[in-house]
């Protein structure tokens, strides 16, 4: 049988190409180490050098935390770190506020959780782990059992709130913003009402949290307005906004805080009582952060395609509604990472309040070194490590929350 020069028929079916799954390369640990860490003389040397370095750092750090660190300075001053000079016989006030917040958080999360797919408790635990770690560390440094017992009580109130929230009817969700506002107001009353303690006597973590949260909440809308103003079609508005942003961005924050603290008195009409130091510092921080937020939001506004505005106009939406419902939501979603970065930065900037003798966390950590018992005791490291830890817990929590927010809003990505 003669075949043509090109044989097109084969006796058996052509073999199908192998399914293109990359081969699984799961090496046993010993092999993995040999292949990745000791595969050449240079790598062997590097592995040994860096391995020793890491081991040494881990060893020293562990020894410092658990053995050599003299944490008495923190233990003795734990209340100072938490609330600064807050009068000691008024300490029930922060606890009332905490319980209010715990209860409201329970109700709020219960109502909110209904609208979302259920989250396994391990995930919740992982999400809360930085905050829980902070709580455990703080409580472990307490010399009495009272704070721990009260914290357990706080969790109980939160759980009770959660149960209550689960029983509320669906339409109660509309009241959530109201519940939030009421909680903030009641907590404020718990601090200051009935012969309470004003801001100027707050300190430590309490002051840091207050200034940071108030700063974030108030500078954000201000910054958004500035960003919108910068794109306004009225030249006067534009000029004012650009001028403000460039002026503030050209000045260090510490200068603004000093101006608020020292110079402001000269500009106020005589006879007018000057606002408290905390208030002046807070205003400086808000004015400062707003300028940066404005620039971030402007970037977001520019990232929204022109077609979006045109489509909104074409269905008859007014300019205000176009901005509020179409442009801003997309603009803000696009800049969440940068915004949260700014908020984290603002949180840490509260440490500058120490410069005008407001005792926030860093201020307390410096002040305790001047106490009789710790003077010349070389416990700076302990005080600073603890202060850093508190900042880290807050900032890391914010960073993780931002990642989750991004992922969730990523639904319906164009």
């Amino acid at each position, binding site marked *: 049988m003669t075949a043509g020069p090109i044989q097109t028929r084969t006796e058996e079916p052509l073999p199908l190409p192998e399914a293109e799954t990359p081969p699984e390369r799961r090496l046993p640990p010993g092999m993995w180490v040999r292949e990745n860490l000791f595969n050449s003389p240079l790598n062997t040397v590097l592995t040994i050098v860096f391995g020793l370095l890491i081991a040494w750092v881990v060893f020293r750090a562990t020894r410092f935390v658990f053995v050599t660190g003299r944490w008495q300075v923190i233990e003795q001053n734990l209340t100072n770190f938490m609330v600064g000079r807050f009068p000691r016989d008024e300490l029930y006030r922060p606890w009332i506020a905490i319980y209010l917040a715990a209860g409201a958080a329970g109700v709020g999360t219960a109502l909110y959780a209904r609208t979302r797919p259920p989250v396994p408790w391990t995930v919740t635990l992982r999400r809360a782990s930085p905050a829980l770690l902070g709580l455990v560390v703080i409580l472990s440094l307490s010399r009495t059992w009272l704070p721990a017992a009260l914290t357990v009580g706080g969790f109980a109130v939160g759980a009770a709130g959660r149960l209550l929230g689960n029983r509320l009817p669906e339409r109660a969700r509309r009241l959530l913003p109201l519940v939030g506002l009421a909680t903030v107001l009641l907590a404020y009353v718990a601090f200051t009402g009935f012969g309470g303690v004003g801001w100027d006597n707050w300190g430590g973590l309490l002051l840091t949290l207050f200034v940071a949260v108030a700063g974030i909440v108030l500078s954000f809308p201000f910054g958004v307005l500035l960003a919108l103003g910068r794109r306004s079609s009225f030249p006067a508005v534009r000029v004012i906004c650009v001028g403000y942003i460039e002026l503030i961005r050209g000045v260090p924050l510490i200068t603004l805080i000093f101006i608020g603290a020292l110079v402001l008195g000269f500009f106020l009409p005589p006879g007018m009582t000057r606002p408290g130091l905390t208030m002046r510092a807070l205003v400086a921080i808000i004015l400062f952060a707003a300028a940066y937020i404005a620039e971030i939001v402007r970037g977001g506004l520019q990232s929204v395609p022109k077609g979006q505005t045109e489509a909104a106009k074409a*269905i008859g939406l007014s300019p205000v509604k176009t901005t509020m419902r179409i442009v801003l939501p997309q603009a803000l979603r696009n800049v969440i990472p940068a915004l949260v970065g700014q908020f984290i930065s603002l949180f840490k900037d509260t440490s500058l309040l120490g410069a005008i003798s407001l005792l926030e966390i860093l201020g307390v950590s410096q002040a305790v070194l001047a106490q009789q018992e710790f003077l010349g005791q070389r416990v700076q490291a302990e005080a600073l490590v603890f202060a850093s830890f508190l900042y880290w817990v807050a900032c890391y929590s914010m960073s993780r929350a931002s990642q989750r927010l991004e992922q969730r809003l990523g639904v319906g990505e164009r």
Partner: protein
Amino acid sequence: MSETSVRADATQAKGGEAMIFCEGVDKFFGEFQALADINLQVGNTEVVVVIGPSGSGKSTLIRCINRLEKHDRGRIIVDGVEMSDDVRNIQEIRKETGMVFQQFNLFPHMTVLENITLGPRQVRRWNKRKAEDLATEMLERVKIPEQAGKYPGQLSGGQQQRVAIARALAMQPKVMLFDEPTSALDPEMIKEVLDVMEELAGSGMTMIVVTHEMGFARAVADRVVFMAEGQIVEVGTPEHFFTDPQEERTKLFLSQIL
């Protein structure tokens, strides 16, 4: 037949009353004249297809009709309302004109249903129930009721464009403007959009369609307008247009694309 008589007759609306009336419209982008002395009437229920080479001012013309671009001279009257700088006038005209864009321009952060109900709820101030009922009806009309809960990013191009048509229709406009509605679509999706448009034309909607789909123009248009360099060069019925064009410019264009 002289050149002037062709223009003068053909720019008149075919029916009685004019839904859209343009007279002596000029539009400049800086030094560049995008529209030059545009005179055009579109009658009630009429379907006008605008064709022409790119940069000829087709899109600019229909964008002037709902004030996405501001014309510099002349008059534009839509359903008896003259376009002026008065914001209320502009809003009034935009309520009566639906627009469909080449790039769909759906709102990516809203579901299909929210995209469609936004206009009726925010502009017409309807309650949620009424707006959603209408939106469902519109989605059935464009044959994708099952996509109501999805986000635009989860739909194909053809589906997105049909949602955009439903969104425009939900404002119950008297005029629909289409700005190259199929130019950004993959070939296999063009037909589903054109079918919806054809159905719409059959239902008596007044339409101005900028397109390169000559088959659509031939089958659906009452009149075809050919534009070049910002001017209306020739206007006529599809038969006249595709079989016996008068102007050299038109013949050249048609020979290039057919």
